[in-house]
């Protein structure tokens, strides 16, 4: 396996997303930049429209570089902590290291959302619909954020006493009322938030340390891939979250992908829906691929 294209960015990459219709890549960095790159052929000339399976070399050409959080704190270096792309309207929500939330698009100027006391130490963000965001925080909260309303944030009621800090959140691709979160204690939770005052949840204690990323399989939406600091990746199959906060006996993951000689944390994970390949990247500066 060889890299087909490389691109230098300013800072550590904190988020990556492909634009669905055309081969363009959004990248957010820890130094506050948001890039849009186009995939071009190796000579840097023509924009590539279709990617074939043949291993050809590509280049990435910078189309746009934004600093979405700069307005909120001029002169300060505000990094992007997390990023989410809305696949239909192409809008990008980013969380700044100063706690602000910004919405950017390829066409429009970035706008900073009004400050909300609910949103503290936000760690993960995802779109539920074109006007609603969902965020996870280190305070252990899941907050829904409606862009149309005057007091936009709506915390999800949690009645299990002391929620543990959350590292990431993802919205189910086919059922937007299903969320998944990954926590500090290695627990993956799937939520049904149709009744936001009494959400139901299903717990999967599949990891032994921080869960850094969770993602739903875009085609088989009942499957979820996760990665963790313990160096493993898991595929979890959820059923309908039934009872509220009853801890099931430890449900084993559908697949656990772990190499015994790979002890360092996995920071990012994704699944190829058609090929059923799970890919993860981590602190060992290597990519782990596994067919499930």
């Amino acid at each position: 396996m060889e890299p087909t294209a490389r691109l230098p960015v300013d800072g550590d990459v904190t988020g990556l997303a492909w634009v669905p219709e055309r081969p363009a890549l959004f990248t957010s960095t820890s130094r506050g930049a948001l890039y849009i790159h186009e995939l071009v052929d190796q000579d840097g000339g023509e924009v590539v429209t279709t990617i074939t399976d043949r291993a050809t070399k590509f280049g990435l050409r910078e189309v746009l570089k934004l600093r979405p959080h700069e307005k909120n704190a001029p002169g300060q270096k505000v990094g992007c902590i997390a990023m989410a792309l809305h696949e239909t309207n192409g809008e990008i929500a980013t969380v700044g290291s100063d706690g602000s939330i910004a919405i950017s698009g390829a066409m429009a100027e970035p706008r900073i959302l009004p400050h909300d006391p609910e949103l503290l130490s936000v760690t993960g963000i995802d779109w539920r619909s074109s006007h609603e965001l969902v965020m996870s925080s280190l305070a252990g909260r899941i907050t829904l954020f409606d862009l149309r309303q005057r007091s936009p944030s709506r915390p999800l009621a949690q009645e299990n006493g002391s929620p543990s800090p959350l590292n990431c959140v993802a919205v189910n691709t086919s059922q937007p009322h299903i969320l998944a979160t990954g926590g500090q204690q290695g627990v993956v939770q799937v939520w049904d938030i149709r009744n936001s005052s009494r959400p139901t949840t299903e717990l999967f204690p599949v990891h032994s340390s921080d869960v850094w990323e969770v993602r739903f399989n875009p085609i088989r939406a009942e499957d979820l891939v996760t990665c963790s600091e313990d160096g493993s990746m898991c595929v979890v199959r959820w059923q309908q979250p039934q009872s509220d906060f009853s801890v099931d006996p430890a449900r084993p993951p559908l697949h656990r992908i772990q190499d015994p000689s790979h002890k360092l944390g996995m920071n990012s994970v994704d699944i190829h829906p058609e090929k059923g390949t799970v890919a993860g990247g981590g602190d060992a500066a290597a990519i782990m691929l596994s067919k499930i």
Partner: protein
Amino acid sequence: MLASSLRDRSERRSSVEVAAEQAQRPKERCLGLCKPGAIKDLLQTNRTLRATFHPYISELVVYPTAVKPKEVLEGVPGGFPQDKKVTVARWNAIHPSRIPFINSTFGLFAEMDDWFNELKEGKAVTSTGEESRRERLELRGEDFSMGGVTSTEREEYAKLLARERESIRKASAGYLRQLRDHELILRTNPEEIGVFGKMFIIWHLCDLLHLKNNLDRPVASDLLEWVNSFFESPPKQDFKEIQTSGRLSSHPKFWPMVHKCIVRHHVTTAVILLNKLATEAPPCSYIAEVLIDLIRKMPIAQEDMSVNAFKSEFQEWREEVRTYTWEEGLRARLQSPEHFQNVWRAFKLLAGDEEALKSEATCWQELLAYTVLFVHPMFSGRQVADEIIPTIREDSDGSATEEACIALLEGDFHRAIRHCSKIDPWLVSHLTDILTRARLLDDGPLLDQLGGNRGDRCTLAESYLLTYAEIVLTVPSMWRVALEYFARCPRFGRAFIAATIPHIPLTSEFETRKVLSFCRMHGMETERRQIHKAVAHQRYREGRLGEAVMDYVEAGEHRRVAAIVDKLLDAYVLRGDYAWRDVAKAVPRRALYDNDRLSFLSHYLNFHELHNAKRFPEAAEKLVELFTSGAAPKRFWPTLLLDALPLLEWKHEVVVGVENTYELMRCLEEIITSHRKGEYLALLAGKENPDTRTDAGAGGVAEGVGEDWIQKAEKMLQVVRLALVRNLARAMMK
């Protein structure tokens, strides 16, 4: 003759030493601060350069500075163009292309370490907690001849050793593969290739000789494999050239190639070549057939072979070789004497003629392998060390690699390690570690003969691993691997981690979470708190009080939390600032159990929510609870009493019951009659006083308020007293 050879040796030595000296000389780097060689000019202008090292990253800060204070000097120009310049010099202690190797070998190391830890734990379990029995087993080590150890224990121990061996074998093979792979990847970097080549030679030899299962087995095939793996075999081009040429026997490279194939035991290549010869005219064809037969039949000692069987087989084969060698008329069958010489030589090699083998070998490593293969095929590693090494060790060129190889062949591991330490930190640390695990090196504390406290010293393996990890740490992105190595050092690992963590630059929010996660995983509680504290300070400076409070709670800084909450409450009373609400909402519920002041804040928020929702009876209960539980600070009591006014004066129904009214009255009296009345009322008084209203400081309020303002505040509370009395009457009537 002897004298000249000695002189030769000394000359060769000296050239080696010169090369070594050059390699050790520090490399010069020009930072462009002044022209090369112009340091004298700098001194004349009263300037010199000073530098400071970074605590662990390979970085140096250089700046020009004055030699003597300006005031002391006369007539020296004061300014210097570069005075306001600080130069940061950075260099790579580790070549970037090596990072994948470091990462993957760490994985192998960690896997083996985990295996060993599991075995240790497993051993404790199988001996069902009988500590003394387990210790007895460990103390005895491999010596089972003494009484008192049952056969089951002996079996258990043998199994354990076998499992240890297995994991060592696996790890060693993994390291070897990594060394070989990375040698291929690094094609573009000659310096690194050189180091990897050396590491591979040494590791391979150690792996073949010492890390295999049976130490008494014959080593001939292993040594041959070692030599074949890195000393140039007969070149492929020559082979092709010979194959395509017409008449083989007259080709100048044909016989040398055959000889090489014989000593290297390349059976297939030799057979292909000789088969071609067999098609030529009769004398050649006959010779070729004989040689093919002999080469094919040559026995090589295998581990699982019985000694006697092999001995007789080898003897038989050797006899056969000799028969052919002395066969009458062999000379007569060949055309030219030159041709005969070549055939003669081939037979001599097969017969193990030492002179012939010596002239065939280009270096001592080859000679060693050939001698063991053809002369002493049954020799074990120990026999090789005792009988062959003394004769060839003079031929070593004195380089660290060759000396390390000889030391390994002799089984002198300490000397091998000493030489390895000159080659590369990776090699020495991992080799020492694996040799210690294989019980070939003493695993006691260093310098044990000095006596004293053993606990103050670590093992040799640990000291090398710590050094290696420190070198890895110089690459900023590799802190995680370095810390993992530290974490696997039992004696000083934790101390190293504790010293390192505060220096890891927390460049991004995710980096901070990663470091915290590491601290949690390894139970580094103090360091975890330190990081939370640093983050909290930063948040506080940025004015993000909610997050600051959360981090201060995690850091266990309850006084700071209380100070922030007090400041927020003061701002609320004095200026009606509702920032406290944001904080109260933000704080996670689990923090409330740890900190009284936060818990008060949360309950107070709850009271406000109930009040706003017009759930007055519940609000009243909550308010009284704030007093009775002692959660509310007394200087806030007057404000709480004023908060009670609307509840007491609620027209439609009695909200505050008799008991609760009594309680509120008690609180009111406690404030008014206290000798610290002034202190308690200061906050409320400050609210009325326009001068203090702008004063945000919490502590400043009490001192800044005059006596008359205190009296005014007391009058305000009289209103509460009236309301209480009225409410009591109403409540009693009910």
